[in-house]
């Protein structure tokens, strides 16, 4: 364990810079993915006939191996092969793939009694979506977001293979130098990162859904 700590202290500056890259590569796609998944999921819920094709397409998207995606994107986007933005775009795809069904199901989980009542109170369609349906879908969407966050964190490391340096580099170093400490350090940091994302999302969901905990008398 001391050798892991020694490795960390001796490589502190580059590890911190990798950590920064890893953080934004995991976080930005999560936010972008959610923003894209919301309207798509809304569509799949609003027009029920579109639910099967949209969710199937999203499922297929997720089955594309990440390496293939990271390597094809530069050609599609016209970006440099080593640009981190390829990874960000790829992970955004995965986030969308994971969240579309969740968003649609979350919106669908809101009781029709509640929605009818909202319409009858005089909410316009848009007001009803933002003031009633979306807030009530937060618990379901939040659960999906947690899965997507953890999945993103672990997928970021794959980017090392295509030369985008971030914390995944620790595994490359561990492999090429046949050294254990960087690998263990990488594992620890990734697990902590995944937990951190999880806790942040969980906290946000709790903040947004005080009624859920008040449910028990």
């Amino acid at each position: 364990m001391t050798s892991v700590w020694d490795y960390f202290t001796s490589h502190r500056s580059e590890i911190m810079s990798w950590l920064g890259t890893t953080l934004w590569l995991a976080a930005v796609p999560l936010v972008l993915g959610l923003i894209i998944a919301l309207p798509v999921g809304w569509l799949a819920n609003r027009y029920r006939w579109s639910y099967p094709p949209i969710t199937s397409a999203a499922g297929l998207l997720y089955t594309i191996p990440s390496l293939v995606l990271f390597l094809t994107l530069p050609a599609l986007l016209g970006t440099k092969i080593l640009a981190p933005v390829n990874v960000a775009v790829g992970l955004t795809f995965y986030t969308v793939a994971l969240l579309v069904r969740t968003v649609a199901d979350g919106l669908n989980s809101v009781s029709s009694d509640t929605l009818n009542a909202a319409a009858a109170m005089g909410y316009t369609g848009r007001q009803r979506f933002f003031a009633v349906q979306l807030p009530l879908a937060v618990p379901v969407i939040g659960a999906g977001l947690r899965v997507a966050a953890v999945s993103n964190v672990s997928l970021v490391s794959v980017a090392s293979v295509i030369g985008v340096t971030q914390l995944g580099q620790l595994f490359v170093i561990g492999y090429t130098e046949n050294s254990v400490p960087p690998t263990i350090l990488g594992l620890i940091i990734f697990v902590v990162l995944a937990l951190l994302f999880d806790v942040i999302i969980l906290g946000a969901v709790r903040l947004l859904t005080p009624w859920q905990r008040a449910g028990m008398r």
Partner: protein
Amino acid sequence: MIRFDSVTKRYPDGTVAVDNLDFEAASGEITVLVGPSGCGKTTSLRMINRMIEPTSGRIWLDDKDTAKIKPAQLRRGMGYVIQHAGLFPHRTVVDNVATVPLLLGTDKRTARKRAMELLDRVGLPSNLARRYPGQLSGGQQQRVGVARALAADPPVMLMDEPFSAVDPVVRAQLQDEFLRLQQDLGKTIAFVTHDIDEAIKLGDKVAVMRAGGKLAQFAEPAELLSHPADAFVAGFVGRDRGYRALGFAESGGLATAEEDVVRLGEPLRATRDRAQDGWALVVDDERRPQGWIAVGGLADSALSGEITPDLLNLGGTLAKQSGTLREALDAALSSPSGRGVVVDDDGRFVGTLSASEVLAHIESRAASIRHDTMTSPGRGAFTSGVPT
């Protein structure tokens, strides 16, 4: 006033939910739409606020054609209460009630203040205001639903089986309070139910609908009971309607007999002299009846001690002096002593009456109605009850 003018709702598959409906829900009155499931009553209600659009015909709100008012604007002017209250689970009780005023642009403080007044009005303690709907009982949620519908003081209320999902005791309570509230507020109310007893209890007018979305009869409740338009209505109104019709006949003019009473806490021996036929009526210090005590057949030795509540028979119902013949008859029939207990509006004991006295009164009243009917022919047709 809400007026249905040849309103039809036909779905693309050819199903006719509402067929050429014509009726008027008068201002300040409760108009109940009642009928078996699938009779189009809820569809009719939902066409009023354009949750469903009619295929043909018009629905008028006073002198305005509802089809020409924007749905959101139309709905903000109509309170709406549904079966499971349909409260917003993510908003506190007070914010649920403030919904429509906020939509209408009232500032938050004023809207909340108004919401608190309404919670009080529907009989909810103010400490529930900060709770979420999930923390309330079904009956409490339903009250919040009513408060929410009243919040913007709309002239019109639409109510879709609002009391159906709560247990019978709470339902009766909510109905009574609703009637009291309506006495103060005088809203124009369209009320949907499948329960004919509820329709008769609450409605100023009742529209009985039958399968296929047709209006079978539109009448006052008493008229519905005494003159069902056809076999369907007679069957739907059901059995016991002769007895239930007494619920619309005031019992004023019924003479009561005096009765010696005993008070709680008096020695048991006191019942000896004051009991009639072995039963004595027990009252509290305010002369409010508490129950009957049986003293016939008891030996003197058993009559030691005081009159305590656990000795009382609580079987009898109480009839208000200002109540109906139905109450009076029920009080007499349910009383263990055979003597129905009549009280005044404050619940104080007035006197007793027997079932035969009530029946004699009913007979003579019926005779005078028959006499009136003979002079105006065409009414009073005999209708056979259809087994349901």
